[in-house]
């Protein structure tokens, strides 16, 4: 197959969706007027597929901080962290992350994807072993591949299967980096992190937690899944992103147990890419303060999640997991999922359409992510739109009790 033939094959699989009148891959948000509403193809829609969990993208303090930073420090750093791209604000954010997470050291990256690829590919190398949860994010797989380490998968969220794999590795378990996520972003299920920690400690392995979707959303103080499950001191490395709860873009790796500063001169994705723009760092720092100071944002987020989850369950949808800020409804086929996605959009609700191979187990799902900023009216609109889909697309018996409609 020539280079361009591959492109044609890819286009054909996208044409399957296009034939249904759906352009999910290219859906453009023309105007994002607020954290929860935007304009797509001339229509106002409620945004319910944004990962904007705390709704801070339009928070006044965050916007003001970004504006002030762009005025005083300019539009970009035009350099990598190792060269001319480390400003006082980057260092300050790292200090503030250390203080917030109780970490010994942390490193800020330009995106969350880069944080994972860079950290994982550098922590482990040839001769080492990586054992990752099968449902891990693309950036984890990518980092593992780039590392040169031997890579094994264990069954999703299965500590016993992890134990089996570490046992098979024998003495090499002590050269092994185990990788899991906190909240899995496609189905919205949560890692049994405390049990994973027990297993990796039993075999003397190291653990990296990708807390991208749980940072800010879980734990009494928003410190993520390790805080929520009471195992912060057991996790060796945490990576995360600024593009979910913190409402900007960027990523980090932090450790309570180890000094990771030496990695700065090792991680190529840190050394050879431009650092974050000062305005991005400024709004991230402002948002980080709010995560600590405004626990009511988390309360509201989880209330919204619970309402939508129970309503969609009552409508007869098959749900991906217990309620969490990510609510996946599992559809029968890619075609049905695509039609449902378009119906939701026509009803003024934007969610994410995920078709194979985007979601685990080759599932076709509609992925709804809630925000603390969703108003009760917007939550009603989301539920009503799904009710329309249930009416028109699904011939499942409807539950009678427990619905919010």
């Amino acid at each position: 197959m020539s280079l361009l033939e591959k492109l044609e094959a890819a286009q054909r699989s996208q044409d399957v969706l296009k034939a249904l009148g759906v352009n999910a891959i290219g859906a453009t948000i023309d105007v994002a007027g607020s954290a929860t509403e935007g304009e797509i193809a001339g229509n106002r829609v409620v945004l319910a597929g944004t990962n904007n969990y705390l709704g801070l993208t339009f928070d006044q303090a965050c916007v003001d901080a970004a504006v002030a930073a762009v005025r005083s420090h300019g539009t970009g750093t035009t350099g990598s962290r190792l060269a001319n791209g480390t400003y006082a604000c980057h260092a300050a954010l790292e200090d503030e992350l250390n203080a917030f997470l109780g970490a010994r050291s942390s490193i800020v990256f330009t995106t969350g994807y880069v944080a994972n690829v860079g950290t994982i590919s550098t922590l482990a190398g040839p001769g080492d072993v990586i054992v990752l949860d099968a449902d891990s994010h693309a950036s984890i797989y990518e980092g593992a591949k780039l590392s040169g380490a031997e890579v094994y998968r264990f069954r999703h969220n299965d500590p016993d299967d992890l134990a089996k794999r570490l046992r098979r590795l024998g003495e090499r378990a002590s050269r092994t980096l185990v990788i899991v996520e906190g909240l899995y972003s496609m189905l919205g299920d949560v890692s049994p992190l405390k049990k994973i920690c027990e297993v990796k400690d039993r075999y003397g392995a190291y653990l990296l937690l990708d807390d991208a979707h749980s940072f800010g959303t879980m734990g009494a103080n928003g410190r993520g899944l390790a805080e929520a499950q009471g195992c912060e001191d057991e996790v060796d490395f945490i990576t995360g992103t600024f593009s979910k709860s913190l409402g900007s873009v960027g990523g980090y790796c932090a450790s309570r147990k180890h000094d990771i500063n030496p990695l700065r001169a090792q991680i190529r994705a840190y050394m050879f890419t431009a650092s974050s723009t000062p305005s991005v760092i400024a709004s991230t720092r402002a948002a980080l303060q709010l995560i600590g100071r405004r626990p009511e944002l988390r309360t509201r987020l989880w209330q919204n999640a619970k309402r939508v989850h129970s309503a969609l369950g009552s409508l007869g949808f098959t749900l991906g997991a217990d309620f969490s800020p990510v609510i996946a409804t599992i559809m029968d086929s890619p075609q049905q999922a695509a039609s449902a996605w378009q119906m939701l959009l026509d009803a003024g609700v934007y969610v994410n359409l995920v078709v194979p191979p985007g979601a685990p187990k080759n599932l076709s799902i509609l992925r709804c992510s809630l925000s603390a900023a969703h108003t009760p009216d917007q939550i009603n609109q989301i539920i009503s739109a799904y009710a329309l889909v249930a009416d028109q697309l699904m011939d499942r018996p409807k539950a009678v009790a427990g619905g919010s409609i």
Partner: protein
Amino acid sequence: MNPTKLRITGDSGHELRPIVMTTYNECVMQIQQMLQSTVAKGDVVGEDVDLIEELGLASLDVMELIEQLEDVFDIAFPINELGDVRTISDLASRVQQLTDR
């Protein structure tokens, strides 16, 4: 089905430490049995049939097949090597090597 566990005895007839050994053919048969559901009853998937291009498995199916083999033979199969696996023959040779470790 479990891999055949051979008890090796020395010339003197004294029993040596029991070891688990799997032959290439046993691996092939095990894999063919696992793939039985993909072909008509009575048929077997040939050793040199390309699992993805010819048999029509998705890469995820191959991964699942390997996971099952890991459990049956109690081995660890690195996913780095996934790209090298095209046929039952490829898979059986590698599984056989791993059980020798």
